[in-house]
């Protein structure tokens, strides 16, 4: 994945700062609660939601099971329709391919449609290194790019910014990138949108190369689909002479008809709309209509490894709607940056450690960035059981074992930093295996309860810094039960 996040601290440390930032907390709370409530209403309108969700899950599972077959079918269909298909095993290879393709055109700038895959591989940075400037054209991505910032949400990457901050960024940064912001810009949404429109129009009309991702690829026809709200996507997909699309291999659906399910579930889950404003579909190239050269770069970058895990593979069903982010109480308080990945929130917590492995501090901590409350699973339109995968990945972190990395079987050692926990779990297992030991422990705790401290030292401070400890009663239930014959011999 992108080098941008290398060296990120573990999640609890990164979240610590966000939790203390009251402006950020307020921005996130307002934004996530608004979209959360709207989604609930949009979903409640459909009486067949549960069936759509199940259908989406089954289509994705079927496709993933036969991914080799559908990928080849897609390649044939795209090639027949006049496109060229490239295969990229990892981020470096994908970046090399795209950089090479842009250089072949002789151009030194590209316009971009919002795309998670190109962020995942750090394409903008790779292009920059090759002397090619990539312009983000989605409004929120523009804000992030101009602000030299990182996205903090899948759907609304600038969710951590408020209107005042956006105005300041536009005023300061638009000039160096192209058309400057109008004078006396206020933070009124209409004015900010107009400033972006004027700034971007120049780019759309000049660009010879467009770069996109795709929400879906239809294997039977070779059609790619981009779903968006601003029309910037339509501009980038139709005006340039060359179009390069970088798409994760899991984005396939077998047939055109399968789109019927996802074009209902995706807009309602993401923007809470019945239908998104712009749905662009293209199949190869068409003479005199749209780009005359089309390249599709199919990206693996850890997806085949993820597919090899029978529990973790369900993460590949994800259609990037971000409903799970919007309902997540942890995301709401920690913010997107704490997840150290372009995929934040619950889905990021199960996707990043699978795509990147669990070797780094941030990736080994992500499976624990959840209270397992299950709100994410409840709203997921393709029924990814995120808590199940989180627990599965925790097991991988503490226990290690055999996994697939870069297509080969590897044996992972248990992660460091869990030795005390492992010992505690073993001790607890021993006590709980012998009721007599449990009773002895309870009696010891009861006898010493008058000298129990109110706060704990060392790791226990994590509890007692903000919460009182429960008071240990004078008698455990099991002792009471034995003493009173199940409560029949009167209370003491």
């Amino acid at each position, binding site marked *: 994945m992108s080098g941008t996040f290398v060296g990120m601290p573990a*999640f*609890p440390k990164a*979240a*610590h700062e966000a*939790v*203390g930032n009251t402006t950020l*907390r307020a921005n996130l709370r307002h934004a996530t609660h608004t979209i959360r409530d709207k989604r609930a209403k949009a979903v409640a309108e459909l009486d067949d939601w549960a069936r759509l969700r199940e259908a989406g899950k089954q289509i994705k599972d079927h496709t993933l099971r036969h991914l080799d077959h559908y990928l080849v079918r897609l390649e044939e269909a795209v090639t027949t329709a006049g496109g060229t298909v490239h295969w990229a095993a990892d981020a470096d290879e994908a970046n090399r391919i795209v950089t090479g393709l842009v250089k072949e055109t002789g151009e030194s700038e590209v316009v971009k449609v919002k795309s998670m895959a190109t962020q995942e591989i750090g394409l903008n940075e790779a292009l920059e290194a090759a002397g090619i400037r990539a312009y983000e054209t989605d409004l929120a991505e523009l804000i992030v790019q101009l602000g030299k910032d990182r996205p903090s949400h899948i759907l609304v990457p600038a969710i951590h910014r408020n209107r005042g901050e956006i105005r300041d960024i536009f005023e300061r940064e638009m000039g160096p990138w192209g058309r400057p912001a109008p004078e006396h810009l206020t933070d009124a949404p209409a004015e900010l949108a107009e400033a972006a429109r004027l700034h971007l129009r120049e780019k759309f009309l000049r660009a010879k190369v467009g770069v996109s991702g795709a929400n879906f690829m239809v294997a039977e026809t070779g059609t790619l689909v981009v779903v968006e709200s601003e029309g910037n996507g339509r501009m980038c997909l139709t005006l340039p002479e060359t179009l390069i699309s970088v798409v994760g291999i899991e984005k396939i659906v077998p047939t055109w008809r399968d789109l019927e399910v996802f074009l209902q579930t995706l807009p309602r889950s993401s923007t809470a709309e019945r239908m998104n404003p712009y749905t662009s579909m293209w199949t190869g190239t068409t003479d005199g209509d749209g780009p005359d050269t089309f390249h599709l770069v199919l990206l693996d970058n850890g997806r085949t490894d993820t597919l090899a895990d*029978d529990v973790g593979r369900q993460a590949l069903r994800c259609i990037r709607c971000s409903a799970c982010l919007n309902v997540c*109480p*942890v995301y709401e*308080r*920690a913010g997107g940056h704490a997840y150290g990945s372009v995929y934040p929130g619950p889905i990021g917590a199960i996707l990043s450690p699978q795509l990147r492995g669990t070797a780094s501090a941030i990736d080994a901590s992500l*499976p*624990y*960035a*959840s*209270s*397992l*409350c*299950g*709100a994410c*699973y409840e709203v997921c339109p393709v029924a990814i059981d995120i808590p199940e995968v989180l*627990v599965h*990945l*925790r*097991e991988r972190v*503490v*226990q290690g074992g055999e996994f697939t990395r870069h297509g080969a079987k590897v044996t992972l050692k248990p992660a460091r930093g869990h030795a005390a*926990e*492992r010992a505690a*779990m073993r001790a*607890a*297992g021993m*006590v*709980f*295996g*012998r*009721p007599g030991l*449990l009773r002895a422990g*309870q009696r010891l705790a009861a006898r010493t309860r008058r000298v129990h401290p109110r706060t704990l030292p060392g790791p*226990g401070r*994590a*509890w007692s*810094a*903000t*919460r*009182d*400890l*429960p008071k*240990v*009663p004078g*008698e*455990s*239930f*099991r002792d*009471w*039960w*034995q003493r009173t014959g*199940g*409560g029949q011999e009167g209370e003491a």
Partner: protein
Amino acid sequence: MTNKEEPALRVALFLTCVNDTLYPDTGRAVVKLLTRLGVDVDFPAAQTCCGQAHYNTGYRHQAEPLARHFSDVFGEYEAIVTPSGSCGAMVRELYPRIGERARAEGRGDGLARTLAPVVQRTYELTEFLVDVLGVTDVGAYYPHTVTYHPTCHGLRSLGLGDRPARLLAAVRGLDLLELPGATECCGFGGTFAVKNPDVSAAMGADKVRNAESTGAEVLCAADNSCLMHLGGTMARLRTAMRPVHIAEILASTEEEPWS
């Protein structure tokens, strides 16, 4: 144990290790409540822990012997009742998964078969009252204002729905006030509370503020683990409210008020 003439329903109380050790009052309340409703309650003394903390922290293989032990202790009972949504969910939702994983690891379906009977016979307390005993009015009296927090595993894993609210609404003297943001997690999450203490504490404080905004005297839930976190937070924030397990409210009568 009971003087009733009809043969009483005989059930095992799976109290949970947390309640046994820290909240024996909740256990006594369950015994009092069920006995009043004609249920013959047994507390198998060999019970310990369901293994939830092990499982959810990534120690599934260490949870297995605890699941087997649970099955040894409770396997013979007609019904197993627990006053904990999350421990109930461990047995009902995660024991089958432990069995499945063992099978996927090539260890056959022995574990799944061993655990199946306890999976089918385990009920969370409010579920047992409403679905098995068929009562919503348990004859309780509790003259206080109460707001109810539906804990995540009770709500989403077990699907308790409005059962707890129906039970509380039928309690005489009780004024049930709606909790804003009720379905949001309180931030306990087992080891999450200490692995991510900042986020956990922020979630707890928000939940307590929401509960306070109702003006209720009592924050009620059907899981003492969440209440331990919320009660500890309330004490630290010097909130006038107190946490009370639903069993203690339902056990309370006019003749014998619960503490």
